[in-house]
């Protein structure tokens, strides 16, 4: 159980992770390791437990047993906001943004400063903050929408905005739950381009169903099925694994 400590070059070490909801094991004795600067994609059929794995890592769901080490810290013992501050960012499956606020304000809230109550009261919109917000807005194709209320954005733009909110946090591990779901073809292309630029200098854990997209970005793919790893390796290895073909890619 100490592999994470023995091999410190792993950014994230998930070991023996299990969670059971009233006896139903949504994630069952799962172990996997993510290296620095690695892009890992998790695929699997609906209900395989993909989202639950992210929930466990970011602290939204408490593990029944097992360990999650991030840079040597045990995330299972930390609060959600501490996990974020340790460098883990997470995008939700459905776009989760603040529709009553402007695009600028959405991004600004994620700026990693003034996170305590009194810090937030004293927070100033300095030139540095403004610059960073504009920089990120540019990356997520929303530069000309900064002053606009976020509820006026299209579905794809909302997804980008949430990605931007993570980007501004500058996490070491970025977790994205189906970032291109519900996007048009052209939006998908732009998102792939966006992901290619933002994955530099950090590790990324992506859940995605779109195989073309997965092939395009993944270093390594983990296939989940019924809470367990069915197969793991490069896209080619996984694609040709008969077990995977049977439960997932076959139909």
């Amino acid at each position, binding site marked *: 159980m100490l592999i994470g400590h023995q091999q410190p070059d792993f950014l994230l070490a998930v070991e023996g992770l299990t969670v059971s909801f009233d006896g139903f094991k949504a994630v069952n004795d799962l172990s996997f390791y993510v290296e620095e600067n690695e892009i890992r994609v998790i695929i699997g059929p609906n209900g395989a437990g993909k989202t639950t794995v992210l929930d466990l890592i*970011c602290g939204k769901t408490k593990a029944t047993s097992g360990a999650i080490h991030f840079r040597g810290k045990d995330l299972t013992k930390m609060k959600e*906001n501490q996990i974020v501050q340790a460098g883990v960012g997470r995008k939700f499956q459905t776009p*989760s943004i603040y529709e009553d606020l402007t695009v600028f304000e959405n991004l600004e*809230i994620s700026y990693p400063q003034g996170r305590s109550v009194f810090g937030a*009261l004293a927070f100033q*919109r300095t030139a540095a903050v403004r610059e960073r917000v504009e920089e990120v807005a540019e990356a997520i194709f929303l530069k000309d929408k900064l002053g606009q*209320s976020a509820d006026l954005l299209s579905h794809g733009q909302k997804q980008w905005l949430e990605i931007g*909110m993570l980007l501004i*946090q500058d996490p070491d591990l970025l977790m994205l739950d189906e970032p291109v779901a519900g996007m048009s073809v052209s939006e998908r292309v732009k998102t792939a381009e966006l992901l290619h630029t933002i994955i530099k200098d950090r590790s990324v854990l992506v859940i995605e169903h779109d195989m073309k997209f997965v092939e395009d970005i993944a270093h390594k793919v983990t296939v989940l099925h019924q809470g367990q790893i069915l197969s793991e390796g490069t896209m080619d290895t996984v694609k040709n694994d008969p077990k995977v073909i049977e439960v997932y890619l076959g139909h």
Partner: protein
Amino acid sequence: MESPRFLSRSDVIGLAALALLLVVILPLSLDVFRLNLVAKYLTYAFVALGLVLCWGFGGILSLGQGVFFGLGGYGMAMYLKLEASSVENTKIQSTPGIPDFMDWNQITQLPLFWQPFHSLTLTILAILIIPAFFAYLVGAAMFKRRVGGVYFAIITQAIAAILTILIIGQQGYTGGINGITDLRTLKGWDIRPDHAKVVLYFVEVAFLFGCILLALFVRHSKLGRILVAMREKEDRVRFSGYSVANFKIFAFCLAAMFAAIGGAMFTLNVGFMSPSFVGIVPSIEMVIYTAVGGRLSIFGAIYGTLLVNFAKTSLSESFPQLWLFGLGALFIAVVLIFPNGLAGIWRDHVQPLIDRMINKRKSGSDHHNGKSFGPIADGAPAE
């Protein structure tokens, strides 16, 4: 992007309009009795102001703000009662020097928790700190456990009920159902005559403006935006690195502190404090004032409180039984038809008219910036 300033243009106009009403128009046009009624109504405006921050922005509905109003009011009443119960004034009692209701209840010594209220400084500190601290305890116990929404509302309501029962039951220590009455002087200055009422009215208005400025500051700070964000997507805020519970606790404590100041002002202006301002019914009424004014509008809360209370006074003078039904109907109407209350009506219907008139007058010259401003239109969520 321009920085959100501490006071936007619409805030300055709102403050000026309110000041005109409260400092000039009402004092000049009302007799002392009516002005004192306004003072009484305005004490609830402190509570409504807190509810705008806590409920409107933060989404935390408390149905127990009467608790904090009561704590502030009782704090002030205890001080005034002790001053009124000098040995000289109470020499006919079997134990002179203690409040009359204690004497009637065969209590022969001032209880320990009454002792600090001999000092005005300690009293003021108690009014500001005890309700906020109590809110902190309740907030920490609830929000850290992720209790929110309806459950939180019900718990605050239960606390209001418990405190009322406690006050009524402990007659010897609290004055029971009658409350603490027969208050006379503040540091020797008689609070009962007409000129004192006028002075107290202005003191209260000054405090109200202080609280409004504080609320505007919070609303325009990043904390204000986090409250709005939290109301919408609590998890997103949490997973952006914030301790959601701490922000909720802050909003709840600030609302409690505002309510307590209102309570203390009530005691001073009205001259007594009783459990009928602590319990479930007054707590719900205060939520209705906020809803009528517009729960997203700091200024709206003040106008809502004044308007509902004027209506209450005039209606209950003529049809006392109908008032509660009227209030209920008003609340339903506001929730169903005007979810943003008076402030929403102002913003959506009155303001555009004014804007159009201004625009017509200066058509051709510099164009209008399109941003709505007005005395109560600060509540547009995405402004």
